[in-house]
């Protein structure tokens, strides 16, 4: 296959969510000495942008989004170390969890699916995540963004508790903080001092990308 055909193939198969085939093509591409950056920017990311657009239009369903994201994640497993070597910026790393005392995770799972679908590397801490666990995860994974999800008015105060824990650990400035969940509003997010809020999964992706861009334009990479 020519490099063009491989890029086209990667794009098509990612769109379809055909994980095994995407892996195969990734290996073939690297065997042909194609650069990880070209795979990422000329095939994978365009494919996922198309996935996002189709979802927004109502053509793609959540499960399709999910397998497309998984297909890309498989390829990224291989590309990420190589990209790090070449110093190419990936889309971003996102640590996500439902706050302590709360077990609602459908909304969070959807957000994760969409974030992965948009090319983010997502580390999901699950539900009932205590402030210490968020701190530990941020120290371990050094994400660009951390997301707190809460679905109960009685657990929304955990946002503040998490932020305080980040302050104490000296991490508050190292990471963008996003909050969300059904009862959360922009006002509430502002009051607790989060950096971003979004009302649904596709809005989260847009907002996350915007916040990252802003951050990166300020902080040199």
């Amino acid at each position, binding site marked *: 296959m020519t490099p063009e055909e491989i890029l086209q193939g990667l794009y098509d198969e990612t769109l379809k969510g055909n994980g095994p085939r995407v892996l195969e093509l990734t290996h073939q591409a690297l065997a042909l000495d194609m650069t990880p950056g070209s795979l990422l920017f000329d095939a994978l990311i365009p494919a996922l942008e198309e996935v996002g657009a189709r979802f927004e239009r109502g053509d793609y369903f*959540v499960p399709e989004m999910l397998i497309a994201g998984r297909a890309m994640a498989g390829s990224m497993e291989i590309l990420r170390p190589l990209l790090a070597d070449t110093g190419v910026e990936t889309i971003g790393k996102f640590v996500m969890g439902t706050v302590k005392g709360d077990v609602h995770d459908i909304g969070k799972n959807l957000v994760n699916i969409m974030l992965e679908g948009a090319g983010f590397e997502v580390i999901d801490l699950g539900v009932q995540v205590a402030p210490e666990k968020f701190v530990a995860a941020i120290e371990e994974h050094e994400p660009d963004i951390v997301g707190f999800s809460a679905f109960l008015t009685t657990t929304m105060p955990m946002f503040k508790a998490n932020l305080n824990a980040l302050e104490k650990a000296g991490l508050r400035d190292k990471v963008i903080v996003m909050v969300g969940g059904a009862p959360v509003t922009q006002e509430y997010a502002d009051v607790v001092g989060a950096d971003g809020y979004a*009302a649904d999964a596709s809005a989260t992706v847009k907002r996350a990308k915007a916040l990252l861009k802003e951050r990166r334009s300020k902080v040199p990479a």
Partner: protein
Amino acid sequence: MFQNVMPRYEILSQDALATLDAAWRRLVSEIGVEFVSDRAIEMFRAAGQKVEDHTVFLDPEFVLEQVAKAPREFDVQARNPERSVHIGGDSMVFGAVYGPPFVRQGDVRRDGTMEDYRNFLKLAQSFDVLDSAGGVVNEPNDTPLDSRHLDMTYALQTLTDKIYMGNVVSGVNAADTIAMGAILFGGRDKIEETPCSISLINCNSPLRWDDRMLDALFEYAAAGQPVVLTPFILMGAMSPVTIPAALVQQIAEALSGIALAQLIRPGCPVIFGSFLSNIDMQSGSPTFGTPESGIGLLCTGQIARHFGLPFRTGGGLTSSQLPDAQAGYEALMTLMPTFLAGTNWVMHTAGWLDGGLVASYEKFVVDCQITEMLQHEFKPLEIDEGSIAFDAHQEVGHGGHFLGAMHTMERFRTCFYRPFLSSSDNYEKWMRGGALDAAARAGKIATAKIEAYEPPPIDEAIRLELEEYVVRRRAELGD
């Protein structure tokens, strides 16, 4: 055409049925039924029934003998064979609202026009849940009165390829409708063999069949076109205030009309009709979507099955002036029992507002949405290894999610019904979309459907022949 293979919800005990049975027999034999038609009276007299003036005192056994001649189930053909329907058994066939003089679109309520009429026909053609546009979806008040039936029938035959209802304003109109049917289907023998229209013959309750209605009945029955013999009962005004009394009266009226249809043409397809609601005893206004009408509807289905006849009842009825919450719950308050009873022919499915005085564009869409939901709800569950999905649990485990499970991947596009009108957008998304309520969204859908409408193809020669018939008859009728 929808097949309802779910169980019927029946609330009358055998004892109750027996009591109702005894009571209608007493009504037809002791009070009798009035037929304001000398032809009808002569027929009953010739058949050996006791007649006084215009009242016929019927022998119940005679009535049942006549009723036994009516087919249990029959077909009605549409010019598009895929749209032909079967009336009776598990089939449910749906037609739009019938008769409103007024039309509502958004905030405006006005006299209905021919333009509206054609629009509603386009909507009826566009929604698959409807098997028919019905007949008078709204009264086209801007067309000449004497030839209006020609314009409506022509529109029904050309703008839709579904079955349609016959005009019943007079015997003459009925004859015209039949003649136009014969043109469309290639000869009167063709439509006598498989009928092409259904006509609504209302009883002037209590216990009186009116001359105009009977004139139309004579025409249609003679041509073997199905007739819906409908006791039209608003309890408190046209029947006693108790539901059992209304049910008894309904049996007496419907069966007496059916008996006449069978005298005119033995074996003529008929439908046991029912339109049963009540008035508000305080103000006298007709009310719809009431608990009483729901109960009556369920009983009607059971009674019609008892006599082995297909039946008509139900629809998206409401007293509301607007397509608001009341219109939503009242329409469903009638449509849900319509399904529970397994109604074979459903008139007024879509568009009804203001007690039937108004045809509403928005309500039309709301009702199609409700009906489509019900058609999905009344599907039998398939219970097998695949649908039990043990493997999905093995894959997902405790507290996980099924969004990406294999079982989901195989089914996600079709597993749930997806409504076209109901919105499940979250608040922010809904606000971004303009914060439209259901009525506003329905209005947009109606407009879009009418714009996207494509006329179903028709043989040009036949269309011309129909047009010539309309022109010639209009001249003869002096309009």
